[in-house]
């Protein structure tokens, strides 16, 4: 049988999923955590604790006050040391709540029993409220506040819930592991989402390089009518919302529109688990699974990490930074960001920490574009990356806008495939930023 996938573009980088067979293990709680107030897309959360306050695991420490924002909870118990600026992945300064850890006392409202809670007692509106108060954001990496996705505007109809279990980024295995180890909980989480959206159909898209996860999910899903498991051909960037909808449902999201416009809501499989824990166990989002991997590393790992743990702690747990490491990446190798210092902390969006040596990290020497059109072939959005790059180099923002540069999902397939090693995506990103700025200025007028 031919496996489904999206129709245009895509690449297949070496998978390198070395950590796939390593079970999830809980990482020891560090002595101090710094929890950034802006771990999501949208306005930063406003702190509700002050220096010297005692907090428990799960205590609300910052409130998301605007429409697109998310609550933030303490991941440890202890005392607030300071609310200060810390360095984020890219080296810029962000506000964070720094907590000194004392013991591990959980908030009384969190149910810590391991039994599966299958019965969904809450009504749809209450589920959405619970998701909002638990500070759940999309755990695929973009960190869009999840509750916003469930507020379907009037006039729009949703018929299918799409669960993103693709994990198309090479190296990463966090989603793979939770599908194997927390299968029932994920499927109950999907039931909760179906109830909140009032839909009866859910499709879970899993790439074919995870046969064990597909088998396990299929076996358990037979108890949950309306939830289908859809194996997909391995193809990057299938984990992008629009590509996944095309692959699983053969629906095309038009330019500038949302999945809602074609009757879909897409959520990550990690988010499904977080929603289960929030709704059934009253546990806010304060920990996540992070893959720590690399070719030269002593051992690969999938850690269950408290948010705010310094990356240093993860590095130590796998035996230190391997020799010859040139670059540490936060996230996947295709879309992740280079870490400026291991002092940075794990946030809700940290899906992996990957170590690269010189051969993988260094950019190749840039040469002239030879018009081979490989970038055009692999662009999953049907754009013309070579042309966008040239126009961005010439600061021709008007023309870039006409060529739909803002449709670019920044997957990086063009830069990956370019035989001349041109910095295509870097320049497209610059173009996108400028087009967005121009549009914003225009809307102000």
């Amino acid at each position, binding site marked *: 049988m031919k496996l489904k996938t999206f129709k245009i573009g895509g690449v297949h980088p070496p998978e390198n999923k070395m950590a796939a067979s390593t079970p999830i293990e809980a990482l020891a709680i560090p002595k101090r955590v710094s929890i950034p107030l802006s771990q999501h897309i949208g306005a930063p959360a406003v702190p509700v604790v002050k220096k010297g306050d005692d907090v428990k695991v799960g205590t609300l420490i910052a409130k998301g006050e605007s429409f697109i924002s998310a609550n933030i909870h303490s991941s440890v118990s202890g005392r607030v040391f300071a609310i200060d*600026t810390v360095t984020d992945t*890219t080296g810029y300064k962000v506000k964070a709540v720094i907590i000194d850890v004392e013991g591990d006392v959980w908030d009384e409202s969190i149910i810590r029993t391991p039994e599966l809670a299958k019965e969904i007692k809450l009504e749809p509106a209450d589920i959405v409220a619970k998701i909002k108060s638990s500070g759940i954001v999309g755990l695929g990496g973009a960190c869009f506040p999840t509750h916003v996705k469930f507020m379907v505007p009037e006039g729009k109809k949703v018929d299918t819930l799409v669960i993103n279990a693709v994990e198309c980024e090479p190296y990463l295995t966090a989603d793979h592991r939770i599908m194997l180890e927390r299968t029932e909980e994920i499927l109950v989480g999907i039931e909760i989402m179906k109830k909140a959206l009032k839909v009866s159909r859910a499709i879970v898209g899993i790439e074919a390089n995870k046969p064990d996860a597909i088998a396990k999910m299929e076996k358990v899903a037979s108890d949950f009518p309306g939830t289908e498991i859809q194996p997909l051909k391995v193809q990057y960037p299938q984990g992008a919302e629009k590509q996944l909808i095309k692959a699983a449902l053969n629906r095309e999201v038009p330019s500038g529109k949302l999945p809602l416009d074609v009757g879909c809501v897409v959520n990550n499989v990690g988010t499904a688990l977080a929603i289960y824990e929030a709704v059934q166990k009253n546990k806010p989002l304060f920990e996540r699974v992070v893959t720590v991997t690399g070719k030269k590393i002593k051992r690969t790992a999938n850690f269950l990490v408290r948010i705010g743990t310094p990356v240093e702690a993860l590095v130590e747990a796998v035996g230190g930074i391997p020799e010859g490491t040139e670059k540490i990446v936060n996230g996947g190798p295709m879309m992740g960001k*280079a870490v400026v*210092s291991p002092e940075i902390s794990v946030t809700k969006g940290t899906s992996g920490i990957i170590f690269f040596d010189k051969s993988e990290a*260094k950019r190749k020497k840039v040469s002239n574009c030879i018009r081979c059109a490989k970038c055009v072939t692999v662009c999953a959005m049907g754009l013309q990356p070579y042309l966008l790059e040239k126009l961005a180099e010439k600061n021709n923002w008007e023309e870039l806008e006409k060529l739909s540069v803002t449709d670019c999902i920044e997957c990086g397939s063009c830069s990956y495939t370019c035989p001349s090693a041109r910095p295509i995506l*870097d320049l497209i*990103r610059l173009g996108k930023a400028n087009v967005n700025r121009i549009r914003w200025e225009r809307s102000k007028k």
Partner: protein
Amino acid sequence: MDGIILYSVISLGTVAAVSAIVLFVIAKKFKVEEDPRIDMIAELLPGANCGGCGYPGCRGLAEALVKAADAGSIAGMNCAPAGGEQMAKIGKALGLEVTALEPTVAVLLCGGTHEKAPKKTDYDGPSKCSIAHTVSCGDKGCPYGCLGLGDCVTVCAFGAMYMDEKTGLPVIIEEKCVSCGACVKACPRKLIEIRPQGRKSRRVWVNCRNTEKGATAMKVCKAACIGCGKCVKECPEKVQAITLDNFLAYIDPKKCIACGKCIVVCPTKAISATFEPPAPKPKPVEEPVKSEKKEEVKEQQQI
């Protein structure tokens, strides 16, 4: 053979004559009446088409000036490259009184040289500040400082800037700078400010934009403003040109009298000037070394 040449000359000549007549008639009939003053003003402008005035090129500004003059005033419109005197001439040509503006110059607000802010990471992406700024805080680790990739140098249409290889920072050549503001717009970190040239080119400014606490700022750059406030206290009571906000001092060029007292007290030497600061209060022993260093700094600034 002769016939061919003759026929060609006659036929082509006829075509040319007819075309000339048609073009002449059209040019006369559909002539666009244009104010002759526009051409005149455009000639008075530098013709660099830098866009610093906000209009599309020098002719765009000339048209706008004529239009504004008809409305009564050209106040607020200025061509920085032309300079105050030339603007006064333009005003005169348009029959208006224009008071010459104080001459200004672009000033870099970062002292993060290779020596003061050593590189901590490697950046091997495209050599553009605008891109490096979106990727990370830069190889020096300072999210406020100069990235040293020279976007400002690239946009300067007057050759008034160059990158100093030794320091890794751009240098502004005062004589050539016309303060068009192109570099101000090009810098993703807003590190270039247009400041008054000052009397006898005497200027003092805080050479930093880091708004972090002293300790955090010093971690990445030894020349950072740590917000200690010593300069604020040193500034003469009648002047009070220095304000401290978010651990960063700012010298108001309109108030500053360029006495140079603040330069001496700054513990990180984050205050720069175009002149030799007054001799520091006598106390440290390693004095001669210090003053040598200062001279070096001064020289670099004046290039």
